[in-house]
């Protein structure tokens, strides 16, 4: 095997797309100049349930420049309805199995009931306001509270991938025998992703071929979904997305507006651009569902937890059994022998909930880690000590060893950086003026995606005779840093300088990779890119050393390939580096303009004999105004063991962003349902609050190195979600430490803490 001498992987390099982004040259999906493009604007239902009665389009149609007003009466029907299945698996992946404007039924407020297409955005907006819709309104259920009596246990959830109920050991007897119990219910408001770029789609037809410029986390999922919905061959649909302005799950599944744009473009015979408004984003791309989780811990007096019972009740849509998988990591977080988990659902008049950053684990680990903190206080144990006493040395689900873990080191290093030992464990023991000060901790965990049925990951490597190289993979960059990291992986795999490699992505014409979801992106795509780059390297070395073919002029002719190393675009003997030649010299001498190789990697299934989970530890210090209940986070420390870090600079940004998401989940963020109107009450960035710069505390990110040999060739476990998991719990635990009041509801509202006065 040929070795590579240069090493850019794990270097904190600047983003390759940095200059384009800071100069405004980076073009996002709605910004690609396409001649003749016209504008579409959606009209959403204003009632949550019932039927449209009349839809008067006449006035809108009279507006100059209007090309079409589409309703269920004239919109061409879809060809087929794909099933709901997580896009990670590489199939068609609708976010909900309901496609609007097929008939007059209204399932949720904001559901599209009409679509106006006009030559300018202003005219389309103006005309959309002149579409008059009347409704036959039916009774609606929009909150858990309203539907609690009608809760049901689904057989399976999450696109049928997960069972609705799980059990191991004997939880009933485990709880009966345990001398100490924590029995609590935790509540969560719905959340919306609010990526800063609202979703947009531009559809361009050329005969029966469709090109979509779409803000998506999965171009292939978009291609397959739209092809199926419209009855087109998959090969006739091309999807491009060069830059995506954040996703967080909002763009992980394929929502109706994408195909609606394609249908409208075919209808008017012009390229059509649809950019959702911020308000429409609240009823167009799913959300994290309103939920409550009942967690019961049974423990011995010494702090050994023997049993976890973890039941979730959550809201779903009228037509899909969706719950984010909140129970997975909690089920294997500690070494309890007895476990029971279950999901129950309530049908509500909202769209189908979906993946939202830290899907499932962000809420599930809040419940578990709050309960663990309650147990620590109940037993008078240090919260870290309690967690160490329950450390799972092997996966409690399967008994398999962890492929890598590092959790003890995360607790230790995080605690050191935070100054955890100086903490007075007594609640309400520290004051700074009218501020009460407290600190809290929580465990973070997120599964490394390893499932049967994942698609092979592919990439192409091409090296030109001038020494420049292109790596291609159909992934998408929405800020994770994948374009930068893959450039590094490519440079190392091929053995060429970084500035000689370009990484191409964001086009379904490129080799297929998984969507950028579930912390899977860097692990999956790097495996394919690494495979392609090293294949091409080996191919070129083989050509240089080949004895059977004509090229006997290579200085490496007849050398043993295992003695050849590559660096800076040059192949050479390991022991005699002066003997060798560059890739360029080899290709030019042979009159060949380029060389190319395809790399492929089959993702890890579940049969590795190992458990694959990423771990970390979160620490937070808060100040609570004792009179007003205002909570300010003063600092956060997170220590994480994500395996190989391809680029510490971009990985740190992702982890820091995740931690701030956790802070946001704990404090300002929550979508409130106005159940009287059946609509989200705060559907704007003025009222759906996320932290601003002035709220951001000092955030300290620590990497704990672990060697990961199972997940994928480069040992990458991913950093997309782990930064968020546990952060909200660490803050809520800190709020308890500061005030002595336990808040079991997210977001923590000022009203919750009034009693601390």
């Amino acid at each position: 095997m040929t070795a590579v001498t240069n090493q850019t992987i794990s270097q904190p390099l600047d983003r390759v797309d940095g200059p384009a982004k800071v100069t405004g040259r980076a073009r996002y999906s709605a910004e690609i100049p396409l001649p003749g493009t016209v504008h579409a604007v959606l009209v959403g239902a204003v009632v949550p349930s019932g039927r449209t009665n009349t839809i008067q389009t006449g006035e809108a149609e009279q507006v100059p420049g209007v090309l079409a007003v589409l309703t269920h009466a004239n919109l061409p029907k879809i060809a087929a309805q794909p099933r709901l299945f997580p896009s990670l698996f590489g199939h068609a992946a609708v976010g909900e199995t309901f496609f609007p404007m097929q008939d007059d039924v209204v399932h949720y407020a904001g559901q599209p009931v009409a679509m106006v297409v006009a030559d300018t955005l202003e005219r389309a907006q103006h005309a959309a306001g002149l579409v008059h819709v009347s409704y036959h309104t039916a009774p609606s259920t929009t909150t858990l509270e309203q539907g609690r009596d009608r809760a049901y246990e689904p057989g399976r959830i999450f696109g049928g991938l997960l069972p609705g109920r799980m059990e191991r050991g004997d939880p009933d007897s485990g709880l009966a025998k345990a001398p100490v119990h924590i029995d609590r219910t935790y509540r969560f408001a719905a959340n919306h992703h609010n990526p800063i770029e609202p979703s947009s789609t531009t559809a361009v037809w050329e005969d029966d071929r469709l090109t979509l410029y779409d803000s998506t986390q999965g171009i292939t999922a978009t291609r397959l979904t739209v092809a199926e919905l419209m009855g087109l061959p998959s090969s006739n649909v091309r999807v491009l997305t060069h830059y995506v302005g954040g996703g967080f799950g909002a763009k992980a599944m394929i929502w109706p507006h994408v195909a609606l744009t394609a249908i409208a473009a075919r209808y008017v015979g012009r390229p059509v651009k649809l950019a959702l408004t911020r308000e429409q984003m609240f009823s167009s791309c799913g959300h994290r569902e309103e939920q409550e989780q009942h967690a019961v811990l049974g423990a011995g007096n010494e702090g050994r937890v023997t049993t976890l019972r973890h039941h979730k009740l959550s809201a779903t849509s009228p037509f899909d059994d969706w719950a984010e998988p909140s129970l997975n990591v909690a089920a294997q977080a500690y070494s309890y022998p007895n476990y029971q988990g279950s999901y129950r659902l309530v049908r509500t008049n909202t769209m189908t909930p979906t993946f939202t950053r830290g899907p499932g684990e962000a809420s599930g680990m809040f419940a578990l880690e709050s309960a663990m903190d309650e147990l620590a206080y109940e037993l008078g144990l240090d919260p870290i000590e309690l967690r160490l006493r329950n450390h799972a040395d092997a996966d409690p689900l399967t008994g398999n060893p962890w492929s890598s873990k590092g959790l003890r080191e995360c607790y230790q290093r995080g605690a050191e950086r935070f100054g955890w030992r100086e903490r007075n464990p007594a609640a309400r023991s520290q004051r700074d003026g009218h501020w009460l000060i407290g600190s809290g901790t929580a465990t973070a965990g997120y599964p490394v995606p390893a499932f049967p049925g994942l698609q092979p990951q592919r990439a192409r490597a091409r090296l030109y005779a001038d020494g420049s190289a292109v790596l291609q993979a159909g992934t998408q960059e929405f800020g994770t840093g994948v374009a930068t990291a893959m450039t590094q992986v490519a440079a190392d795999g091929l053995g060429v300088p970084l500035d000689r490699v370009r990484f191409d992505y964001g086009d379904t014409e490129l080799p297929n990779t998984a969507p950028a979801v579930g912390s899977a992106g860097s692990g999956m795509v790097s495996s394919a890119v690494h495979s392609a780059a090293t294949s091409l390297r080996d191919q070129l070395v083989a050509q240089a050393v080949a004895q059977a073919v004509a090229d006997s002029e290579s200085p490496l002719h007849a050398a043993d390939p295992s003695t050849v190393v590559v660096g800076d675009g040059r192949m050479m003997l390991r022991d005699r580096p002066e003997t060798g030649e560059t890739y360029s010299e080899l290709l030019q001498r042979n009159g060949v303009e380029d060389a190319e190789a395809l790399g492929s990697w089959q993702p890890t299934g579940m049969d590795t004999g190992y458990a694959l989970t990423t771990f970390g530890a979160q620490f937070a210090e808060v100040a609570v105004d004792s009179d007003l209940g205002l909570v300010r986070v003063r600092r956060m420390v997170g220590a994480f063991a994500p395996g190989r870090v391809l680029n510490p600079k971009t990985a740190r940004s992702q982890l820091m962003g995740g931690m701030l998401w956790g802070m946001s989940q704990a404090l300002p963020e929550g979508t409130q349902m106005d159940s009287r109107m059946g609509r989200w009450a705060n559907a704007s960035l003025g009222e759906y609050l996320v932290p601003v710069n002035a709220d951001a505390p000092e955030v300290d990110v620590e990497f704990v190195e672990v060697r990961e040999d199972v997940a994928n060739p480069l040992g990458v476990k991913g950093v997309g979600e782990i930064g968020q998991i546990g952060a909200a719990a660490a803050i809520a635990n800190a709020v308890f430490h500061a005030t002595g009041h336990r808040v079991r509801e997210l977001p923590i509202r000022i009203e919750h803490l009034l009693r601390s006065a």
Partner: protein
Amino acid sequence: MADRARLRGPEPVTVELSINHRTRILEIEPRTSLLDALREQLDLTGSKKGCDQGTCGACTVWVDGRRVLACLTLAITCEGREITTIEGFSDGRRMNAMQRSFIKHDAFQCGYCTPGQVMSAVALLDEGHASSDAEIAE
């Protein structure tokens, strides 16, 4: 008397704007925001639309040297004023110290709001409001 105040519209009107020291003439409805004029009419897409209500800051541009939100500014009210967008800010390619610093410190991820942040950050320095972290946060 009243017609001494110039009355225009409601049909599209011709508006002359100076953007990045270049005169641009466009036909817009009076109610068109500067942001939509830049993005949809002039292909100056570096100014981003994130909220359309003045909360996110992704559309920050300068009008007569002061940072403002293009989504809350009517294009037609900018006649006779100098508009600076991210595209004119460093002639598009050569980067200034603020832009280089954003890259060096990885001060962005998806990058969508980055041009607005750069426009705002440079103005912050120009206004002399950057003497401490607390002042910057404010």
